[in-house]
């Protein structure tokens, strides 16, 4: 198996390949050099690499490649709201595969926050309107990154169950394939609301949500304030981040086979610099469902006046889990031992927005 590391930056998509299980990496190509790339996806069902270059001039695009990025087809019609809509689709933030038995179904999360579905492998997109017409939609607003739907989790344990997350807006879940939605933010704190209004039904600034492939109902959330765990598919959340050096952060990785294991990258919450506490770039992990956390950062730069954005942290493989992170100053690091040690893959890339990693059959 080869490994593809697709790194979306403010100026293009950098594709790295490894033929030795992540020990060494080769830069295979740089695409869309003028354009930010906020998301990409390798769909193993159709062997298609999909990316969304965000042209400053021509708007968001959907690009598809059948040869791991050597050539791209940009003829797809990207998601768009209707002409009369008060909101516009200005950016794609998330791409997700549909269920395994629907190989041409994809989902896209966009700015201004909304969810689209494609039934032709990304060629055309239809909005799932029931989400933006939810009565709580007026509680959604823009965070510093924009008003974005950045996370889509297709639940592998329950057919038709989809969790999405917006910043700001919160987490919402559908149990019927997107026909209806319910806010799933019970127990999630809002620090930017007046005293006594800190646990609303919606409006939270969720930064990332991830599910557990091995335990039904187990979910993790990195919120603007707080790291949370749910054991009931998001119906309720427990704050498990209180012993972290900061419970503010963006990236979140869960383990594919150990549901009690998760990784986060704490960033300073009490200042807007958004680098790690003490100007250190550190990864923290738990093996006991958030009871305790420990630092794993050997090999990461110190000091480091950098942050890691919400899609700049990714895992792949399972035993051991491999990790990759990309920084706001263009540093790219990988770990082949679940974060115990880290190796530099590249420095001086443009600001990294997204890291994706997939095992690819030769």
């Amino acid at each position, binding site marked *: 198996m080869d490994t593809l590391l697709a790194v979306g930056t403010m100026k293009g998509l950098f594709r790295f390949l490894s033929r030795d299980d992540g020990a060494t990496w080769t830069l295979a190509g740089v695409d869309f050099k*003028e354009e930010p790339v906020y998301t990409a996806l390798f769909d193993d069902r159709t062997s298609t690499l999909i990316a969304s270059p965000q042209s*400053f*001039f*021509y708007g968001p695009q959907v690009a598809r490649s059948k040869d791991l990025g050597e050539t791209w087809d940009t003829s797809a019609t990207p998601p*768009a*709201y209707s002409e*009369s*809509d008060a909101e*516009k689709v200005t950016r794609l933030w998330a791409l997700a595969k549909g269920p395994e038995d629907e190989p041409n179904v994809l989902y896209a999360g966009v700015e201004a926050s909304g969810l689209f579905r494609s039934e032709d492998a990304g060629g055309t997109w239809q909005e799932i309107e029931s989400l933006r017409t939810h009565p709580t939609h007026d509680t959604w607003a823009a965070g510093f990154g924009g008003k974005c739907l950045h996370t889509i989790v297709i639940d592998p344990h329950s057919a038709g169950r989809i969790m999405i997350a917006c910043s700001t807006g919160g987490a919402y879940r559908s149990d019927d394939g997107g026909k209806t939605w319910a806010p799933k933010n019970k127990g999630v704190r809002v620090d930017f609301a007046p005293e006594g209004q800190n646990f609303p039904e919606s409006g939270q600034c969720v930064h990332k949500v991830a599910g557990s492939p091995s335990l039904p109902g187990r979910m993790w959330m990195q919120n603007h304030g707080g790291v949370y765990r749910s054991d009931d598919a998001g119906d309720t959340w427990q704050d498990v981040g209180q012993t972290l050096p900061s419970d503010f952060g963006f990236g979140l990785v869960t383990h594919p086979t150990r549901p009690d294991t998760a990784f986060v990258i704490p960033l300073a919450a009490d200042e807007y610099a958004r680098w790690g506490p003490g100007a250190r770039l550190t990864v923290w992990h738990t093996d006991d469902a958030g009871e305790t956390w420990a630092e794993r950062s050997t090999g990461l730069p110190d000091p480091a006046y950098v942050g890691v954005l919400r899609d700049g942290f990714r895992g792949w493989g399972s035993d051991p889990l491999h990790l990759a992170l990309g920084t706001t100053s263009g540093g790219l690091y990988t770990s082949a031992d679940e974060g115990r040690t880290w190796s530099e893959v590249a420095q001086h890339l443009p600001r990294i927005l997204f890291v994706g990693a997939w095992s690819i059959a030769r």
Partner: protein
Amino acid sequence: MIRLVIPEELARAVGATPSIRAADAQNLFDCLGTLENRYPGLRRRLLEVDGFVRQHLNVFVNDRLERGRDARTIALCDGAEVWIMRAVSGG
């Protein structure tokens, strides 16, 4: 006929040449609507869904920069020459 000049990378993306001949049209919106059949994806790259010219593009009609952003209000006379250029504000 109207002559439309578009950026080279855009021409490549839609299978066109940088200089396009188009049938006479009353305004830029209609002109691009007609061209969409020949070059799918051209209009959505130049205009927002509401018909406004994208923020970081400039439109010159017969050497004059059109300040109006709604393509329906950018009038084209017979034989007009339209240059669509990337604005420096775009990167």
